[in-house]
């Protein structure tokens, strides 16, 4: 009968039992792994600050890349090239992406939408080098010249999945009441979408697009054999149908040469690229955390 009496002591955790110790140990391991993941990030950021800032000044932003062993110079043409190609990429992918997302969140029912979302996810997993090879085949081989257009086209394909996904999510966050109110007042579907739903989702869409832009600016593999690189400013008479410099390819080219001055520029350009993603990530974080609807 004594077996059945309840002994509250048995409910207490034994702090030295192997089970408790194992649990504590594993918690320590998880914390250790967390540290191991974060430390490299800080080391990388530290080196970028340390090597990047020291190489950064105003002339770096406006001058042309120097030849080996010559002091001075900068990467003004690479900044311009990156801006041009990211702009081309945005001009192509933004309308396609936003319209596709409008279809997904507003008009789609059933299978086609889920297949499109699936295709979007698969497209975002296509290696960037394959996109580069593809753009090379489509534009460079056809027009027989490396060009900012080919680079921008490749970037557009890389940005497309991100834009579709963020716009889709942003549109779905707009409450159904708003759409019903609009329809109740006699608006058409396109009026509801373009004048009511889309404006409501615009802040979130802009955040997503900026993030996609910042990521695209750092993409290197798709530009290496579509836009190539050049030491010179764009020749506007050629309508961008010529090799075009970009920050990302500059980092690659100058990282694998043994010349100190060019390596320093590679660090400075990396610093700018990372600063770009860092700022857009933080801003988008703040924007989405305060979003209310």
């Amino acid at each position, binding site marked *: 009968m004594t077996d059945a009496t309840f002994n509250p002591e048995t409910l207490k955790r034994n702090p030295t039992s192997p089970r408790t110790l194992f649990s504590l140990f594993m918690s320590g391991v998880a914390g250790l792994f*967390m540290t191991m993941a974060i430390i*490299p990030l800080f*080391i990388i950021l530290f080196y970028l600050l340390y090597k990047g800032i020291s190489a950064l000044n105003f002339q770096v932003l406006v001058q042309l890349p120097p030849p080996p062993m010559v002091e001075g110079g900068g990467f003004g043409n690479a900044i311009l090239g990156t801006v041009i190609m990211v702009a081309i990429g945005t001009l192509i992918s933004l309308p396609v992406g936003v319209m596709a997302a409008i279809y997904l969140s507003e008009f789609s029912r059933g299978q086609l939408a889920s297949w499109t979302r699936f295709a979007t996810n698969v497209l975002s*997993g*296509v290696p960037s080098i394959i996109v580069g090879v593809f753009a090379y085949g489509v534009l460079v081989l056809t027009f027989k010249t490396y060009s900012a257009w080919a680079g921008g086209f490749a970037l557009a394909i890389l940005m497309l999945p991100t834009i579709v996904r963020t716009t889709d999510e942003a549109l779905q966050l707009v409450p159904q009441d708003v759409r019903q109110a609009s329809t109740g007042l006699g608006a058409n579907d396109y009026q509801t979408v373009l004048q009511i739903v889309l404006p409501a989702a615009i802040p979130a869409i802009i955040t997503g697009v900026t993030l996609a832009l910042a990521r695209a600016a*750092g993409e290197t593999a798709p530009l290496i054999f579509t836009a190539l690189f050049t030491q010179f400013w764009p020749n506007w008479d050629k309508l961008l149908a010529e090799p075009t410099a970009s920050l990302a390819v500059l980092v690659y080219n100058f*990282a*694998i040469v043994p010349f100190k001055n060019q390596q320093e520029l590679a660090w400075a350009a990396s610093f700018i690229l990372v600063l770009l993603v860092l700022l857009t990530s933080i801003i988008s974080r703040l924007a989405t955390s305060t979003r209310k609807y």
Partner: protein
Amino acid sequence: MTSLSDSSKIIKPRPVNERYLDNVFKWTAQIFALTIALVLIWITVQVAIAAVPAIKQFGLNFLFQSSWNPVKSEYGVWPAIYGTIVSSFIALLIAVPIGIGVALFLSEDYLPPSIQRIFVFLVELLAAIPSVVYGLWGIFVLIPFLKNFTPLKGPGMLPAALILALMVLPVIAAISRDAITNVPESLRQAAVGLGATRWEAILQIMLPAASSGIIGGVMLALGRALGETMAVTMLIGNSNKVSLSIFAPSNTISSLLTNQFAEASGMQVSALMYAALILFAITLVVNILAQVLVKRLQKI
């Protein structure tokens, strides 16, 4: 009665052109949505067609030949395939346990929510750093550091795999964390109620319940690692030899493409397209499997 007839006069049917506009808008949206799938098909067709001459000439031997000699027009991608698989495998070997550890650390209540959010952000940031910056850092910081206490002489498999691990870690961590937080809280409560310690609940209840999502995340990371280009090209040494040592230089399909494409012509372009097609096919299969697994997670 009069008021009713009045209102029926005021509310007119929608004009035909407006209804027309509405349909045009819907159709345009639908066409753009189909564009995404079309792009995917277009990429496949484009790369496949460009690879046809090489496929005809080399056939499946292409996969197992080790020579890459544009002068003699002999092409084989065995060393690149070997390097791609081995570098991704080593990277996953490191990144999977750390990634799942991070996911658990950030889904349990170890940290107050506000600090936890900062850590989640920091891990995301790892994924946001451009690949070429990882490469630059690898060349000037990681490789000199590793040289101090390993037989590494310069670029090689080890630094490339380490950087790859760092790059795919956030993918594994983020998706595993989603999978773990999606496990119904009642399961954990039941386990704890039965007397399980925190880690007994994690290892015997939470992780098995989240396993399909975690495996999906790992597959996604694998796809990323297989196709990752810049950092690997800058760190792996680009030597077209199969070497069993992780300290020796090696090659991957993507680094082969990066190094050779700009100067290639004729059959070499086709051979490179063939290599690209192989990489594309592998990553496509891995990615589709990953999507299916992650999708199943969303249904729980």
